[in-house]
């Protein structure tokens, strides 16, 4: 199975390639003085580095030739001083560079994470988590590398280039202009390279994200893969993706090799031209040989900045495409957020009347709505069971209440407040959800249970665990401090479900939403949990998704969800008697076996 490709929008086109990078400049602003300093330190270090050989030359020409020991020691002292200064300046530059570039990286990462947490479930359904993860790690490193080295050397090299060319022109205008003109092919080569590399760099980053997705998915599906012995198939699939990444990387390497070799060619050829023209000029007597030597020596200083150019551009392009990818996330608006005039009524004022009026919902990108014109009122303290066939939209209906998704039509109100006009924090404090699949994190049991109430005390936690029949947690090797393994898979399905239930109960919601909360419990435990729930939640409005007749005992009324609509509402026994569709869903009797002369009674034997 190929990794899906529709998880992210394609490369953003039509804008300047450096636009996204430029838009990250607010993160640079706090470090502007540091960057100024390190640029100065970098320049000074280059200066000091050039000064040392000059001083050494002066020693040879001066005191040694003149037999002047005092002068020798003075100049040697000067060389030492410059040498020390160079080392200290490099130290300062690197030290400052580290802390500022890392500070920027860390700040951007924290902001992306915060934004990801705010983005609604529909965003996370659409995006592969590996793509998001690679933005937080690989892409940010590319930006950090560019900020700490590329940017500085780009500036230093430009300065070096300009200064040297200016000196060359002063030394000999004609030859100097020849060298200056050589900047044109350099510029053209660099521009062409930048464009080609931009595309390759983006492709590579996307492929790195795909690979991260594949790895994460493998880890998730490991048990399934093992159960079917599909390791070889997964490895083959990984081999294809990693080969694609490899090919892109090799292609990038080839691009870089071509360009940097070509870039190197330019100063070399210029040197050849200078040699021929300079020799001619010297022969004609318009240039002394000493001047020609000086000219060539200076010109040799240009080779290093040009050699580094390829790498600097490559790093810059990588940072630019990384910034594009990061902006794609940061620019996604948070669709579900507090309305400007959102209300935050005190908990005491709320009774917990939940009302769906004409609620419709369609998943983004889907053609058909999942829910159509749902009308349902759950009175304060009442328990309503939601019954429907597999895939009829029960879980979707529940997810609308805490605004994991927003309704696409109609209104959903709690005590008359439209949920979209309540503050999100208030709303989600009011509503407690136990999901169909208990989501546990690889953290301590305590942390998992107190997810919605970090301030809960020991007694409250114990009460919640007792209610959910989850006191087994105290017998774990480290009690409640025991780390639950990944997704809690070291616990049994029933244990995880009970922990998730304890978590929901602990958050003391006014509105309880239970999505098939006891499916993994045995009959006996289920009965105990039910009894405890009844005792504990007499005043809590509850909407519970139910597949089994047993759990319906909890409910005052039952709503039948068919094809996105509520088609029947009433007491269990009444519906059982009057609604055939309901009877078909919940009847304990096996339906008439369709043309199969099968078991009469419970057992085939």
């Amino acid at each position, binding site marked *: 199975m190929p990794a899906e490709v529709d998880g992210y929008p394609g490369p953003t086109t039509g804008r300047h390639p450096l636009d996204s990078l430029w838009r990250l400049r607010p993160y640079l602003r706090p470090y502007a003085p540091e960057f100024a300093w390190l640029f100065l330190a970098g320049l000074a270090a280059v200066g000091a580095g050039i000064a040392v050989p000059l001083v050494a030359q002066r020693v040879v020409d001066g005191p040694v030739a003149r037999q002047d020991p005092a002068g020798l020691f003075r100049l040697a002292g000067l060389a030492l001083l410059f040498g020390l200064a160079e080392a200290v300046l490099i130290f300062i530059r690197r030290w400052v560079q580290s802390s500022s570039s890392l500070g920027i990286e860390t700040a951007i990462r924290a902001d992306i994470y915060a934004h990801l947490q705010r983005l609604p479930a529909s965003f996370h359904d659409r995006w592969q988590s590996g793509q998001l993860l690679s933005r937080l790690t690989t892409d940010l490193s590319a930006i950090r590398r560019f900020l700490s080295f590329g940017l500085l050397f780009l500036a230093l090299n430009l300065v070096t280039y300009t200064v040297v060319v200016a000196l060359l022109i002063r030394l000999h205008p004609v030859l100097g202009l020849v060298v200056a003109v050589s900047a044109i092919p350099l510029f053209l080569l660099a521009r062409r390279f930048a464009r080609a590399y931009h595309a390759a760099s983006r492709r590579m980053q996307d492929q*790195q994200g795909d690979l991260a997705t594949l790895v994460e*998915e493998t*880890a998730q599906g490991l048990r*399934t893969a093992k159960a079917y012995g*599909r390791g070889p198939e997964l490895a083959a699939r990984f081999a294809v993706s990693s080969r694609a990444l490899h090919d892109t990387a090799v292609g990038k390497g080839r691009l870089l090799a071509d360009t940097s070799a070509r870039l190197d060619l330019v100063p070399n050829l210029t040197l050849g031209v200078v040699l021929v023209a300079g020799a001619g000029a010297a022969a004609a007597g318009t240039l002394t040989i000493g001047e020609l030597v000086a000219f060539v020596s200076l010109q040799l200083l240009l080779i290093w900045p040009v050699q580094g150019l390829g790498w600097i551009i490559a790093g810059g392009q990588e940072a630019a495409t990384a910034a594009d990818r990061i902006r794609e996330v940061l620019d996604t608006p948070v669709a579900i957020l507090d309305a400007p005039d959102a209300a935050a009524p005190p908990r005491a004022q709320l009774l917990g009347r939940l009302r769906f009026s004409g609620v419709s919902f369609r998943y983004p990108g889907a053609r058909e709505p999942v829910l159509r014109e749902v009308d349902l009122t759950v009175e304060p303290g009442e328990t309503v069971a939601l019954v429907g066939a597999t895939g009829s939209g029960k879980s979707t209906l529940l997810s609308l209440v805490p605004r994991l998704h927003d309704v696409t039509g109609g209104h959903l109100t709690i005590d008359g407040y439209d949920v979209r006009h309540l503050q999100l924090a208030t709303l989600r404090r009011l509503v407690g959800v136990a999901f169909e699949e208990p989501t546990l994190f690889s953290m301590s049991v*305590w942390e998992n249970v107190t997810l*919605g109430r970090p301030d809960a005390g020991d007694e409250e936690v114990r009460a919640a665990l007792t209610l959910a029949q989850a006191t087994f947690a105290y017998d774990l*090797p480290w009690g409640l401090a025991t780390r639950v393994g990944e997704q809690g898979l070291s616990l049994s399905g029933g244990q995880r479900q009970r922990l998730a239930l304890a978590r929901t109960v602990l958050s003391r919601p006014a509105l309880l939403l239970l999505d098939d909360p006891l499916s993994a419990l045995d009959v006996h435990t*289920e009965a105990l949990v039910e009894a405890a729930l009844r005792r504990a939640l007499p005043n809590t409005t509850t909407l519970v998704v139910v597949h089994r007749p047993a759990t319906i005992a909890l409910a005052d009324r039952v709503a039948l969800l068919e094809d996105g609509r509520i088609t029947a509402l009433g007491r269990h026994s009444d519906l059982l008697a009057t609604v055939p569709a309901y009877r078909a869903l919940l009847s304990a009797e096996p339906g008439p076996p369709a043309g199969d002369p099968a078991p009469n009674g419970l057992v*085939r034997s």
Partner: protein
Amino acid sequence: MTDGDDPGGDPPPAIPVPRPRSCFLSNGAVESTQENWRGIAVDPDADRSRAEDTDPAAVARLRARSRALLRNLLHPHRRQLAVAVALLLIQNVAGMAGPYLVMLGIDRAIPPLRAGDAGPLAYIAAAFVVATVAEYTARRGFLVRSARIGQAVLLDLRRRVYRHFLRLSVTFHERYTSGRMVSRLTSDLDSIGELVGGGIDSLVLAALSILSVAAILLWLDLPLAAVTLLAFPFLFWLSRWFARTSAVAYRWTRDSIALVIVHTVESLRGIRAVQAFRREPRNQRIFTRVNDDYRRASLHAFQLIATYSPGVKLIGNVTIAVVLCYGGWRVLNGHAEVGVLAAFLLYLRRFFEPMQELSQFYNSLQSATAALEKLAGVLDEQPEVPEPARPVPLPAAESGRGAVAFRSVSFGYHPQAPILRGLDLDIPAGQTVALIGPTGAGKSTIAKLLARFHDPNTGTVSLGGVDLRDLADADLRQTLVLVTQETHLFGGTVAENIRFGRPDADDAAVAAAAKAIGADEFITALPDGYATQVHRRGSRLSAGQRQLVAFARVFLADPAVLILDEATSSLDVPTERAVQRALATILRDRTALVIAHRLSTVEIADRVVVLESGRIVEDGPPGQLVHSDGRYAALHRQWLDSLS
């Protein structure tokens, strides 16, 4: 947070990452409640592979292993490497020739030119062009080749680690967590990639020029060269300091980036719970902490190189000043020539310049080695459930290859808490057994042992008379499939997910499987039918629909032995019934172990086994058990009551 050398704090450290003893780290005063969020892992090796231990011997062993791994990875490319180095030397010689030819031109070509003879200049210009073209070709060839070698090594390593992860047991993955696996296969490989990206040339060139210049220096003036060599003990001492501290520092960065990734992966996966329970602020605090921990780890490593690199520079510059002084003095006293001093100073500069590059390379090497150590640690991890060296083939289909037997099997996830004690269970081929009992009785454990997710502590589990430990994995998986409550859908289409059961099945077979199980109706109603992308972990399909897809998958796989562990828990009653009808058909001549809390599932069983605290307490045909006065009869009554 305490430093590594702080003796305080009795609870085990929540984040057992190595803390370098250093002044950079003592500023993290975080309240203890934040410290404990991860909880205490049952396994002390939870955050690392077993090879990664903190005692010095283990560290040294792992380092040796990672070097061996590197050698092993490079071995197939040794010819290409030799070619690359040769090209590098050509490039270098050609590069050196350029300035030399220019000087030659000035000295030798200008006088004849003045005399009207352009011949020497033309020769030299031609030689210059040749040198330039040679440099261009060699440089391009070298860069392409080194990129190819580097990427081939990365590809090889990435695949090896991935395949090894697939081989490692479920237990390993449970403690290691998927986030850390992602971290190893992405971030760690990235940092090795940085080394192979631009490492070889600086290493080779620097070593080359240092050696050649050292020879020239010794030849030029022995006493001056001796003074120069005085720099070496300092360089050596500084490098050793850097090697030691940076190894620890980079290990710390690898561990801390893994925590960032682990936390991110889990937050994203559980985003619904995070939002519904208003977990965002606390998550953000935790993220800020792991993020900052990574920042400090990187900062520490960067500051080490920020000290080392100018340190090398300093030693070089001081040496130059000393040589200048001593050499000048020797010339003054007539012990040396001025020309020698001038040449010496010029070469000295070229002696210390590559040292900078070398220090940079050393830094990348240290960072890559830390990452390589992590990967070597993973590769070193022995599968707890190993493939047999000499697999025993299963008996032919007719002679009861579906027979399952547990012989005095004891097992516990932790030695102090055994779950099964001396369990004996025989299931003849073709029998359908329902396994029932209270939560925690060990039902799922039996299923996992039979699927060989774990091996028993004592006793044997056998299939068709062959101990599972002697069966080839491919044979076992082809014969036996476990379906659990947690259904995982892989990225791709619905059809591809069903085909996971039998990769060579055609579309018609896939559709037939879905139809047989009653999943056809909902699948064809999906926007793109069987070609619908299931997206991230199937979040658009309901839990029940995913279970149906999983059933179609196992139907297609058509194993001789089927284990169903609560596999129908999310289905509504009619759908479950449809699935059961389909199962009844396929299970007629297959062995099956069915675990369900709902006794409705028992409908299709030939035999019921009641389990309590890891022991079989009742065993017999359901019709018989229901009339005896045992646990099954009680459960059955309770179940009947619950239906009304």
